C-alpha cells in the first residue's frame, strides 16, 4: 500500500531524478517495490557520497523509506523470535540427565532479560555461571548478564560488584560488558571505545568478529547514535550465524541464537530511517514526501512530539493531494491518542473513515493506527468488514491485513488469521514480492501459536532468501516443532 504511494510521490516530487535504469535511486526503488529492502539499501547507500547534490535529497528519501520498512520488519521479527526462543529454551531446559544442554541456561537467561524478566533470568544465569564445566569466557559473559539482571532489579551495587570482578581480556567479554554499559547508560565506561578496541584486536588477529560481538557492538553504536558505523559493521557480518553451537556427542548438536540481534537491527534501521528522512526533509525538492514519511517514522522510532510537529507542518504547508493529507491525519490522530486525547483521535478516524469509504487503503491505515496504539475502533472495523465483504479481492489485500492486525492486537487469533489469509496473495503465498513481509511474519506467528508449524516454517523459508537473519526463527521453530509434533510416521505417494 504505502510503497505504491511512495512510487507515486517520488515521481511527483522529485523531478530531478535521472530516470534511467542505471540510476541508483531508481534501482533501489525497484528493489524496494519488490520488498528487497536489504538489497535496496546495499545498492543505494554506497552510491550516496558520489551522487550530485541535486539527487542527494531523493536518495536520502529513498533510504529513509527503505530503513523504515526494515525497522518495522525487524521489530516484528524480534518479537516473534523472542517468543519462540523462550518456548524452545523452556522445553530444552526441562530435559534432565547428562545430555542436557548447559548453554540453554545462558540463552534462556538472556532471552528472559530481553523479555523484561530479570528476576527469572538471574536464576538461569546463576546456574550457568556456577557450572564448573564451562569455559571462563562464557562464565564471564553470564556474570555480565547477571549484573544486568541485578541492575534492572534495582540492585545497582550488586551489579557493579559483579561487573568489576569480570576479566575483560577477551574481546567477547569486553564488548558484552560494553553493550550492557551502553544499555544502562553508563557513558563513563565509554562503551564505544571498548568496542573499537575489541574490533582492532580482532582485526590484528585476522579474526572476523563473532555474531555475538557484532550484535553487542551494534547495540553500543545504536545507543551512541553511530548509525553509519553500525551499518558498516553489519555489511560484513553473517546474520545467519548461530551464536553458539553446543556439541553434546556425535549425534546431538544444538545451535543457539540471540533474539536481541533482531531487536538491535530494528533500532539501527529505525535510527538510519530518521537520519535519512531528516536529511531529505531539509531538501526542498523532496521536503513534502520526506515529511510525509517522517511524521510516521518519528511516531514509530522517535518521539510523539516530533511526530506531531512534523505532521502538523505537513498538513498546513504541503502541496500534496488531499488523500496524502488524510493519511497523515490518521497518524496525527494516533499521536493524539498516545498523548491522552483518545476521544479526539477516535473522532478523527471515524470522520475519515466515513468520508473516504471508497478508499480501502485509508481505512487500512486507520485500522493499523488503531492496532498500533491499541485503540478500540469497532465502528471502523465494521465499515472495513463491509468493504471487504463487498469489494474485489486483490484491491483489498492491505485492508484485510489491517483488519488482521487489529484483531491480532485484540488477541483474537482466529479472526486475525482468517483476515490475513484473505489478504494473502495465494498464487505466491510466501513470496515477499507479492505479500508484505510484515503480514507474512504476523501470519507465521499466528500459525506458530496455533501449532500449524509447517505453514509458519514455509513462510520463513522463503523469507530467509532475502532476510538471512530469520535463520534464528527457523531453527528455533523447528526445535519447538520437533518436540511438539505428534503423528504416526506416515508417508504416501501423491
Amino acid at each position, binding site marked *: 500500500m504505502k510503497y505504491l504511494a511512495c512510487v507515486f510521490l517520488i515521481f511527483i516530487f522529485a523531478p530531478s531524478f535521472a530516470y534511467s535504469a542505471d540510476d541508483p535511486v531508481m534501482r533501489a526503488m525497484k528493489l524496494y517495490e519488490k520488498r528487497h529492502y536489504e538489497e535496496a539499501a546495499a545498492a543505494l547507500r554506497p552510491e550516496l557520497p558520489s551522487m550530485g547534490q541535486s539527487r542527494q535529497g531523493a536518495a536520502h528519501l529513498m533510504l529513509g523509506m527503505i530503513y523504515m520498512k526494515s525497522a518495522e520488519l525487524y521489530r516484528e521479527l524480534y518479537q516473534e523470535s523472542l517468543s519462540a526462543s523462550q518456548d524452545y529454551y523452556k522445553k*530444552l531446559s526441562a*530435559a534432565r540427565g547428562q*545430555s542436557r*544442554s548447559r548453554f540453554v541456561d545462558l540463552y534462556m537467561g538472556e532471552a528472559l532479560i530481553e523479555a523484561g524478566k530479570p528476576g527469572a533470568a538471574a536464576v538461569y544465569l546463576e546456574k550457568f555461571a556456577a557450572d564448573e564445566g564451562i569455559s571462563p569466557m562464557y562464565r564471564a559473559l553470564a556474570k555480565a548478564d547477571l549484573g544486568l539482571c541485578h541492575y534492572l532489579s534495582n540492585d545497582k551495587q550488586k551489579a557493579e560488584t559483579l561487573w568489576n570482578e569480570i576479566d575483560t581480556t577477551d574481546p567477547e567479554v569486553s564488548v558484552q560488558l560494553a553493550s550492557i554499559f551502553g544499555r544502562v547508560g553508563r557513558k563513563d565506561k565509554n562503551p564505544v571505545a571498548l568496542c573499537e578496541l575489541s574490533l582492532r584486536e580482532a582485526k590484528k588477529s585476522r579474526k572476523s568478529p563473532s555474531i555475538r560481538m557484532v550484535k553487542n557492538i551494534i547495540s553500543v553504536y545504536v545507543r551512541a547514535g553511530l548509525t553509519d558505523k553500525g551499518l558498516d559493521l553489519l555489511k560484513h557480518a553473517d546474520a545467519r550465524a548461530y551464536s553458539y553451537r553446543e556439541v*553434546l*556427542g556425535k*549425534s*546431538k*548438536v*544444538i545451535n543457539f541464537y540471540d533474539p536481541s540481534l533482531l531487536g538491535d537491527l530494528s533500532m539501527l534501521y529505525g535510527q538510519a530511517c530518521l537520519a535519512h528522512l531528516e536529511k531529505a526533509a531539509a531538501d526542498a525538492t523532496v521536503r513534502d514526501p520526506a515529511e510525509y514519511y517522517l511524521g510516521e517514522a518519528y511516531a514509530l522510532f522517535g518521539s510523539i512530539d516530533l511526530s506531531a510537529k512534523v505532521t502538523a507542518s505537513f498538513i498546513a504547508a504541503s502541496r500534496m493531494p488531499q488523500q496524502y493529507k488524510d493519511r497523515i491525519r490518521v497518524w496525527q490522530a494516533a499521536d493524539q491518542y498516545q498523548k491522552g486525547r483518545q476521544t479526539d483521535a477516535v473522532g478523527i478516524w471515524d470522520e475519515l473513515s466515513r468520508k473516504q469509504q471508497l478508499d480501502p487503503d485509508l481505512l487500512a491505515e486507520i485500522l493499523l493506527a488503531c492496532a498500533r496504539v491499541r485503540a478500540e475502533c469497532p465502528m471502523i472495523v465494521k465499515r472495513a468488514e463491509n468493504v471487504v465483504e463487498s469489494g*474485489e*479481492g*486483490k484491491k483489498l489485500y492491505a485492508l484485510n491485513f489491517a483488519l488482521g492486525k487489529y484483531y491480532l492486537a485484540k488477541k483474537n487469533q482466529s479472526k486475525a488469521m482468517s483476515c490475513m*489469509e484473505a489478504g494473502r*496473495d*495465494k*498464487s*505466491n*503465498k*510466501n*513470496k515477499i514480492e507479492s505479500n508484505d513481509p510484515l503480514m507474512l511474519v504476523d501470519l507465521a506467528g499466528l500459525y506458530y501459536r*496455533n*501449532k*500449524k*508449524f*509447517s*505453514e509458519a*516454517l*514455509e513462510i520463513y*523459508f*522463503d523469507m*530467509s532468501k532475502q532476510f538471512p537473519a530469520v*535463520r534464528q526463527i*527457523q*531453527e528455533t*521453530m*523447528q*526445535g519447538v*516443532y*520437533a*518436540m*511438539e*509434533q*505428534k*503423528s*504416526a*510416521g*506416515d*508417508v*504416501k*505417494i*501423491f
Partner: protein
Amino acid sequence: MKRVLLVALLLVGVTFVLSPFAEAGSKKDGRPDGGTLNYGEYGRPATLDPITSNEMISLRITELVFNGLVGINEKQEIVPELAERWEMSKDGRTYTFFLRKDVTWHAREGEEAKPFTADDVIFTYKIMMHPKTITPLKVRYEFIDTVEKLDDYTVRFTLKRPILNALAKFSFKIIPRHGPANPLYLTREDPFVQNPIGTGPYILKNITADREIVLTANDNYFKGRPHIDKFVAKPFADQNIMTQALMFNAIDMIVLVNPRDIPEIQGDKRFVLQPYNALSYSFFGYNMRNPLLADKRVRQAFTYAVNRQEMLDSFFNGQGTIISGPFAPGSWAYNLEVQPYPFDPEKAKSLLRDAGFTPGPDGIMQKGGKKLSFTLKVPIEKESEAVKRVVLAFKNYLKNIGVDVNVAFEEWQAWKEDVFLEHDFDIVFASWVFDDSADISSLFHSAEIGPWKNNFIGYSNPEVDSLIVESKLTLDHEKRRTINRKLHAILADENPYTFLWTLTNYAAYNKKVRHVAIHPYKFFSFADEWFMAEKDQN
C-alpha cells in the same frame, strides 16, 4: 448388599445396552444436519482400506470411514477415539487402552451392526503385521512387541523399547475382525479393500458406474451423527476440468487445487482457499538396480543438469520452492545449511567424464558399450499439462549432457505395479506427502526394499540405515533432530532422487460448507463437524 450389587449390575447392563443409542444421534450443537458434499479428487483410489493403501486419495476416504484408538486434534493434542482412556507404564513400555463400549461397526446390507471390541484391535494389529499382508505400515509398528486382550474392552500393547511419541502411533485405523474374507492376512484381492466397513462418521454406500465413491452419514457414530448427510468423492482425470466443476457448482470442494487455478478461485467470493499440507515434494527417483544409475556421480550429474527453478517458474508460475533434500522446507527436520545443487550443465558433464563416460557416435554418453539411455515412467493420472512439461523438460536437459530419456506414460495401476511391485523402471517422476513425523525410513532404509514397499528405488546405504535406526531409537528430540539433519545432508549428496520442489498446496471449498477445519495431512479428520445451512442444502 446383594441388592445394591444387583441394582448396580442392572445399571451397568442398561448402560451397555443403551449407550450406543444414548450417545448416537444428533450432535446437539445447534447446527443443522443435511446436505451433500461433492468433492473432487485428481484420480481414483486403488483400495479403500487403511492397511493396503499407500496413496492420499485412499487415506482421505479411510479418514471418513475408520477410527484409531486415539486421534490428534487441531492443537496437536492426543485425544480419545475408540479408546476412551489409556494408561502408560512408568518405563514407557506398556500402553493399556480402555475401549469405548458404545461403538458399533457399520452394518452390512441385511446384517445387524456388530459391536467393536478388543478382538478387533488385536485382529487389526495381527493382520497388519502378517508377513503376507502388503502394507507400508509394518515398518512403523515394528516397535510393538506384544498385544494382549485383557478383557473385551481392554487391550495392552507392550513395546520392545520406549519410543518418542508412542501414543500418537496408536492412531492407526482399526478394521473389523469380521471384515476381511481372509482372517490371516490382507491382500489387494480381498473384497474388503474395495468394500470396507468401519466405525467412522461415514459409511461407504456404493461406488457408482462413474467411479464416484458415495458415503452416507453414520447415524450411530459414537461422537454423534455427522452433520452432512452425504460425501461424494468425484474422480477427475484433468485438474482444469475439476476447477471448472467447482466454478460451476458441480462440486463443492477440491482437496488440492491446481496451482495455476488459484488466481481464478481466489478472485471468486463464493470460495474459500485454505492452505494445508506443506509437507510434500516432487522428485525424479533413480532405480539403483540399474548399474549405470548406481553410480552417485551419474545421479549427481542429472541433478546439476536440470534447471529446477526454470521449470518451477515456467510450468507452475513459480508457485513453489526448490528443495535440497528428503524433507520439505516446512518440516522440522529440514537441514537449512544444505543448499540445492545449482543448475550447472558443465559440472554435470564433468561428473559424467569422471565416471568414465564419453560421447558415442550418436552423441549419447557411453562406457564399455553401455549407453546412458533410460526409461522415465510417469503415471497417466499425473499427466497434467504441467507434469508433462516437466518430464519433457527433464528429457531435454539430460539430452544436453548426452543422456537419452524415453518418457513412458502409464495407467496409474500399471505404473504402480511397474514401480512398486516389478521395479521395472529406470527413472520415475512422483511426489511424496508426509505427516509431520519426518519419518523417511520407509523411503530410504534398505529393509524397505521389496514388493509394494516405498523404497522402490532400491537405495541401500549402511550409514543411512544406521542413522535411521538411531533416529527411531532415541528418546531425545534434539538428538533425533540432529540425526535427521545429517540424513538430509547425506541424501542430498548421495542424490538417490533429484529432489525437485514443494508446491503451493491449497484446498478450495464453497462457503456454503461451514465450520471447516482441515487436517494438514489426513484432511477429513474433523469433517463430522462440518455443516451446511438449511438454505444451502439443495
